[in-house]
């Protein structure tokens, strides 16, 4: 008589796929982005950060998958047997450039006087994706700057709504000081219940959000133009030490 077995650990299979014509083997639970990076195939990203949960909002990592008409985000799509992925095409380049143009047109980015000038992921993406001018009308809408925290400052004019700050504070620091409020152009990262950051009861002043913010939105106080260099490498180390939990 056969006994009913309790469900065992799911076996993870290895699949074979093609990225840009290269045959690649990968675990079936990996995303296209992870596999591409392991194989030194560059795909631009902005909201994605290794060590944090996947958000999939910026859409810069879109890739073409054979058999589908719409591009898919590489950070949130798992690989599959026989999949054929193209990471660069005329259409993808156009989409990526347009996304960056919209980001620059939406809030106020004046790189030459920005604290993050020369160390900014958004700026680097513009160069990498050959976005050298914005075709859209700039919105020129002022956003607030909150300098109330003793050590840090948030300048919403430079925020790209990637939510890295929110995720690192919630998932790694465990404080969950940040949240998102409002929609569309009104969308705003807030601290606690939209209190000034300096009055936040939950913030431990650890500075993790500042280090993972890709732009000049979150910075240390006392930095002048071009002086804000960030060091996000602690994140991979921390998650590894915690056994990827």
């Amino acid at each position: 008589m056969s006994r009913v077995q309790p469900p065992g650990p799911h076996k993870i299979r290895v699949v074979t796929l093609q990225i840009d014509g290269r045959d690649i083997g990968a675990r079936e639970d990996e995303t296209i982005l992870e596999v591409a990076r392991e194989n030194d195939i560059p795909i631009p990203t902005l909201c994605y950060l290794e060590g944090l949960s996947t958000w999939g909002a910026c859409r810069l990592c879109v890739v073409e998958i054979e058999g589908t008409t719409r591009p898919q985000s590489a950070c949130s799509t798992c690989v599959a047997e026989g999949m054929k992925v193209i990471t660069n095409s005329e259409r993808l380049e156009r989409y990526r450039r347009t996304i960056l143009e919209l980001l620059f047109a939406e809030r106020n980015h004046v790189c030459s006087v920005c604290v993050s000038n020369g160390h900014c992921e958004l700026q680097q993406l513009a160069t990498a994706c050959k976005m050298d001018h914005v075709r859209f009308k700039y919105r020129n809408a002022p956003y607030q700057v909150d300098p109330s925290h003793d050590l840090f400052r948030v300048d919403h004019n430079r925020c790209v709504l990637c939510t890295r700050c929110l995720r690192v504070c919630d998932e790694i620091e465990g404080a969950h000081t940040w949240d998102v409020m409002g929609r569309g152009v009104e969308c705003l990262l807030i601290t606690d219940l939209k209190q000034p950051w300096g009055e936040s009861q939950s913030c431990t002043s650890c500075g993790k959000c500042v280090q993972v913010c890709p732009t000049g939105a979150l910075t240390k106080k006392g930095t002048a133009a071009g002086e804000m260099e960030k060091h996000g490498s602690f994140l991979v180390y921390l998650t590894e030490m915690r056994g990827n939990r």
Partner: protein
Amino acid sequence: MSSTAKVSLATAWLDGCSGCHMSLLDLDERLIELAQRADLVYSPIVDTKELPACVDVGILEGAVSTAADLKKARLFRERCKYLVSLGDCAVTGNVPSMRNTFPLKDVLDRAFIENVQAQPQHPITGVPALLQVVRPLHHVVPVDLFVPGCPPSADTIWYVLTELLAGRTPDPARVTHFGA
């Protein structure tokens, strides 16, 4: 551009700090080589008062902030076969465009009424009228090449000019970026 005749170059600054032109002067001894291959027919750094009717390459620094900037941008577009937007102010609006988040009247009040003691008044004679919104060059006329940087370095300008003189289209992203 014929191979025998020299290429004609024209430059002007709109609402900029003249830093891009300082970078051009920073070409130093390369200016001599440039002069052998091109004629600078109109520029703040030469004496000609009139933009010639037909120029091979026009280079504009600065954002479009006044009625006079707009007029000059249109004149350059009309008379230059190839128009280069040089520097962040021309390409993005940059620092001059930071006034765009305020109504123009508030900006003028701040500069000429609130912070002055003698004869507070908006300037109306002898200076061109400010436009409501500062715009990058390509938002008012079509542009052929964008060279970001604040300012673009002399090496960047040299790369762009030598590529153009050689009849090639430069790829400024290789040597410069916003804020560079």
